[in-house]
């Protein structure tokens, strides 16, 4: 079982992990994009943190994730904003309207998050986007056995592998796609920030 206060702590941890990676993310985006992914993700994550306040147990998972989605939605931040806002919106759809979740409910949150985002994104694994990370992460979560800790551990491994794999792909979405084959060898900025999201969630659960 995981309660909402613990989950909020995990979100703070994930936000901090992404914020700490600002320079790395912007560096990647400066190669084949517009050099702002770190900046945007920092804005997004800071906004989430400041809007949610200290972790507490007054809200349900559904309500909290809906608020997070709305917080992201208020930012002017390029691709990342509608994508992340939609991810949280989907997670909210998948989340129960109560203050704790079991392993199955935890899995469902990520499943719905992915499915809702997939509709907007249209990207598949191999298209060199954040989906390269999200899809294997969510698959690993769905396939994992055991408690939430073990599930998230598996998801994080999936995310790390996915981000690493993004290096091998040719960009098909976003600003980088015009560079075609040149993008091989460099990971996708959004795939890397998504990896840090899972890494941070996982750290926050320890």
């Amino acid at each position, binding site marked *: 079982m995981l309660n909402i206060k613990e989950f909020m702590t995990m979100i703070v941890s994930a936000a901090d992990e992404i914020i700490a990676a600002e320079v790395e993310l912007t560096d990647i985006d400066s190669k084949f994009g*517009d050099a702002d992914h770190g900046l945007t993700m920092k804005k997004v994550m800071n906004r989430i943190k400041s809007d949610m306040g200290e972790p507490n147990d007054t809200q349900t998972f559904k309500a909290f994730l809906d608020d997070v989605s709305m917080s992201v*939605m*208020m930012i*002017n931040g*390029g691709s*990342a904003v509608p994508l992340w806002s939609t991810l949280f919106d989907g997670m909210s759809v998948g989340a129960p309207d109560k203050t704790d979740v079991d392993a199955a409910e935890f899995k469902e949150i990520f499943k719905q998050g992915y499915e809702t985002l997939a509709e907007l994104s249209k990207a598949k694994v191999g298209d060199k986007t954040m989906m390269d990370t999200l899809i294997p992460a969510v698959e690993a979560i769905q396939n994992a056995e055991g408690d939430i800790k073990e599930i998230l551990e598996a998801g994080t491994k999936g995310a790390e592998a996915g981000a690493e794999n993004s290096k091998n792909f040719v960009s098909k979405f976003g600003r980088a*796609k015009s560079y075609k084959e040149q993008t091989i060898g460099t990971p996708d900025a959004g795939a890397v920030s998504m990896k840090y999201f899972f890494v941070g969630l996982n750290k926050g659960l320890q």
Partner: protein
Amino acid sequence: MKMKKFINDPADLTKELLQGYALAAADCIDLVAENMVVSKTLADADRVTIVAFGGTGHEPAVSGFVGDGMLDIAVAGDIFAAPNPQIVFEAVKLADKGHGVLLLVLNHAGDMLTGSMTMKLCQKAGLNVKKVVTQEDISNATRENGDDRRGLGGAVPLYHIAAAAAKAGKSLEEVSGLAQKYADSMATIAVAARCATHPANGAPFGDLGDEDMEIGMGQHGEGGGGRQPMKTAKETIEIMANALVKDIPLVKGDKVFVMINGSGATTLMEQFILLNDCVAYLEGLGMEVVANMAGNILTVQEQAGFQLNMAKWDDEILAYWNTPAKTFAFNK
């Protein structure tokens, strides 16, 4: 190395530039809710209205084209970043005068995502909105793969043409139909000679060395593979104009519109020379250049280079073009 830009806190770039713009364009626009630029003519508009949005850092685009005979509202995002869908939705609501709203979107990942979500929000709210996407950059994809073509400066003449049709009392169906047809028919190609730096974090957009230019450059330094040694204006125009003529395609006898859109550090002197070369080139092919536009229209900070945009025009488009417009960056 310090950034050689006259700015204050990088986090406040958009806020401050919009405030300054509101002072400079006080006779044309009002700044609403921090990043919504609203035409003074909207209050009395009884027609289809037009909303666009986009990242900042491309000045005068997009906000500089709000006013009589152009956009009714432009929503500014942040530097090179689309605004959030919520505020675009609110702009559409504010713009709607009972005749529906045309939402014009440039094909970039962030803008497209914001556009899609905005449309969803509008549909939920029962608003009468049509979305038209410009996707004209011929450097990355063939005409059939329009989704892979970036939206560049060609959106700007479209702002005026669509607004003129709206002013003429056309319905939303008609205005969006015209806009879609126009968006589908035009083509643009860009070249860069020196890259810019991101004003918020000083990150460079690439490095073209001391000798090279790159044809096919995107709006934020995204390359296109056409790196080659600098050429003369005439040679550069020949390469680029030839590619556009083939793509559209344009043939002898066609009425053509030509736009030279300076990226930032390419002088108006050069732009005039390029325009002169381009018109001569097209006339040499037996075409008639019926209208043109030159200047810094949709810029990429201090990038040196330009976009060349062309479209085949007919008398209807030309008539719309020749109607008055009064905005900060475009007057007719």
